Every structure is written in C-alpha cells, then in structure tokens.
C-alpha cells in the first residue's frame, strides 16, 4: 500500500473534521460505556443473584435476563441501530446523530459488560462468600462488599477490553450520522481513497487504544493486591 502524500487533505481536515470527530468519538464512547456499565452491572448482579448456583435462585428472572442478553447479542450492530430506532426516537427525540448513536451503542454494550462482570463474579473464591454468610451479610452486601469487590481487578480488565472493542464499534455510528473518528476514516479516508487520512486516523485510534489499555492496566495494578 503506497501512501500518496500529495493528494491527501489531511492537513486541511485535521482541525475542521478530525478534531471534532475525535471529540464526538470520545463523547459517544464515554457515555455508552458509562451507561453500558451501569445497566450491565445491574443486570450482572441480578444474573448472579438469580442463577441456579446463586444467592437467591430464581429460574424465571434468570431465564428472562439470560434470554434478553443473548437476544441483543445476536443483532449485528448496524441492524440493532435500525431495529431500535423507534426506541431511540422515544428516548432522545431523534434516531439520527451523536445522541441517537449512544442508545444503540449502550444497548449493544451492556450485555457484553454484564456477561464479563457475571463471569468475573463467578470466579470469586466460594469460601469467602461462605465466610460472609457466616457473619450474616445480606445478599446485597455479599454482592457489593464481597463479590464485586473481590472480582474488581478482573472486571476492570474486562471493561478495558470491552471499551477497546466498542471504540471500533463507534465506527458504525457513522451510519446514523453520528460522525466520529471511525466514520471519518471510512468516509474521508477509505471511500475517498485518501490512505494518508485513513492511516492517520488509525494511528489516532491506536493511540486511543494505548491510552485506554494503559489506564486499564494502571487501575488493574492499583487495585490488584
């Protein structure tokens, strides 16, 4: 792949397109990950609580949650965007643009996050849970003070991976006019055969990946032991 530096509009686009797109990506990623984390944690807690091996086994609730998560995960993101557009319209008033993109991104993210958290909590030493029961910790205390807390490093590692995964997914937000770096790379780089632009954006994405991974590892190390 040869890079044609003569034809690129990178310099021109850098402040006018790429910078706002970077901010748009950051905003979308931030809000969808935060919302995904909130919803995902709640769902994970209920999964762990109601699972057959959980603290308050409840087949019905577990099945419903499990089913919902699996269903959402089976949607290709672009189709999810379309499928939930009526919902998106209800929530943010439009199905187009940055705010609208956060809805499907969040909905795509929370099942992944919920599974990660569930998985991490399942790996917590059973004896510690038993000890917590022995002094009368309530279910919610066991979840929050024992399971979530003990699983935290593993959850942080999972969140890092998910965030990086969804950085790439914000690309798809371009489909609904939300802009973002991925969309710029596609529209102004890939579609226009401006390889310099494309790789410049990939490098920006790469730096973002490095930063996310770095922050993730820093937190992991901080909280692990």
């Amino acid at each position, binding site marked *: 792949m040869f890079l*044609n530096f003569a034809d690129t509009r990178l310099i021109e686009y850098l402040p006018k397109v790429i910078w706002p797109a970077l901010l748009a990506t950051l905003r979308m990623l931030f809000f969808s990950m935060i919302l995904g984390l909130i919803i995902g944690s709640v769902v994970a807690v209920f999964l762990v609580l109601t699972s057959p091996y959980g603290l308050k086994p409840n087949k019905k609730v577990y099945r419903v949650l499990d089913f919902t998560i699996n269903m959402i995960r089976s949607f290709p993101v672009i189709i999810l965007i379309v499928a939930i557009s009526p919902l998106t*319209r209800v929530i943010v008033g439009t199905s*187009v643009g940055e705010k609208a993109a956060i809805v499907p991104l969040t909905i795509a993210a929370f099942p992944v996050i919920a599974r990660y958290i569930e998985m991490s909590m399942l790996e917590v030493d059973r004896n510690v849970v038993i000890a917590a029961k022995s002094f009368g910790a309530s279910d919610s205390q066991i979840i929050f003070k024992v399971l979530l807390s003990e699983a935290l490093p593993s959850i942080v590692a999972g969140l890092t991976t998910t965030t990086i995964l969804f950085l790439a997914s914000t690309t798809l937000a*371009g489909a609904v006019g939300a802009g973002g770096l991925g969309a710029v790379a596609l529209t102004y780089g890939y579609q226009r055969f401006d390889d310099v632009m494309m790789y410049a954006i990939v490098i920006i994405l790469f730096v973002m990946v490095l930063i996310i991974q770095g922050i993730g590892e820093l937190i992991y190390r901080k909280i692990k032991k």
Partner: protein
Amino acid sequence: GCSGSSNEEASVEEVTTEESAVEKEPLDLVIACAETTQALVDAVIPVMEEKGYQMTYQMFDNNVNTMVATNDESVDGLFLVHKPFMENFNKANDADLVMMEPHVFAVGMGVFSERYESIEEMPEGASVAIMNDAMNMDRGLRIFSDAGYIKLSEDVERATLLDIEENPMGLNFVEMDQTQTVRSLQDMDAVVAFFSHMKNAGKDFDNYIIRDQRPENYPQGVIVKEKNADAQWAKDLVDAFRSEEIRAFADDYYGGLYEYID
C-alpha cells in the same frame, strides 16, 4: 450470498481457478455485483449463456471491494459502481479499470422530504441527510448547488461538506449511510437518496423535491481491467446488458428506475 442455490460454493471456487487461467480467453466469467444490481446481473446470465459463456456472479455488500477484486483479478469484471467512482479508485490505487463503452444506464438521485414540499419552505438551519460515501456526497451536494441553494468551491473535483463556500439557508448536512438517509426521513427536514433506495423502501421516488440534473455524468456500465477492454467476452457482456431483453426486464423489475443511456 448469491442467488443460485448451487452458486454459493461454486462462485468461490471459480474465483480461484480463474486466477490460473487468466491469460486465455475465458468462457467462464465471474462478475462482481451488489444488492442494487444483483437482479439485473442474474438476468444477464441466460443471455450470456446463449452466447456460449458460463457466467456466475459474486455478491458484495461493499462497493469498493468489487473494484479491488476486479483489479487484482479475483473476479473478471463488475457491474455496480458509476464511472466517476471508478476513476477515483483508479487514481488513488494506481488501478487500470475501464468502463466499457457504451455505458449502460444511470440511476437518479433526488432530495426528498416528508415535512416540506419545497426547499424554500424549509426553515433556517434545516437538517439534511446526505450520503457519506465520496461520490454520492459530491453528487448530492451538486444537486443543491445546481439548484442554487449552496455554492461549492470551484477548484474541487469531489466536493465534501468542507467545500461549501456559501450556505445562505444554513442547511445542516448530516452524513450517513446510503440507505440510512431513507430511514431517517422522519427525523430530518430533508434527505438525499437514490431513487433505487426509495423504491426499495416502498416510497415513491418520483415524489422528489429536486433531483440531479446530470445523471449521465454518473453512468453505470461493465467495468473490467484495461487489458480486457478489447476482449470479446467484455464486448458481449456490454451487449447483453444493453439487449432489448434486459432493458425490458429492467423496466419491469425496477419500474423505470434506471435511465438507459443511448
């Protein structure tokens, strides 16, 4: 996915056997297409068969990759993108694709709205959905500039939003996926859309507010590598697309969507 039930696996294999038999005049042809032209290419197969060709097609859902595949000879040719798009691809990738003369047809593009009857009705800062791929963004912008609603800078070949020099109505263009413009009709004041997508969405493509004035600038036709431009099979393929039979099929199937270039 391809249409013929047996095509699916066959097409992939053929691509590989093609590779080795590239120099001799092939009787077996693989033509790349996408959802928009697939039915037409499928209709061409029996016409080509009569001429003694064993033709199959390979379906892509990404326009650029049909050209990549043709250029690296993974397929023999394609029938999908319009000429300026191909030329742009050639320039950027040092490729040598040519669109066979005569061209076949063009598809119209227009501005549609579910809220307003004309551009004039639209308020200051009205939101307008525009396709985010290079060629169609340029084409869409030129609809507005030809109609005098915006002014594009003179010295660009493929205009983008940054090339809008004057925008008196303050139109707020939002870039999005080709079919997504149609889907966002109820969220936007107006959208730029292909007639074909409007039709597929079950909407009336004749109900445009304004349309492009120069569809012939965006002709679609058979695209092959330059070295195949004189090959008989390529000529035969063009003839097949332009045959009365196929014209009739296109009129019937696409309901007047395609405007044949004569």
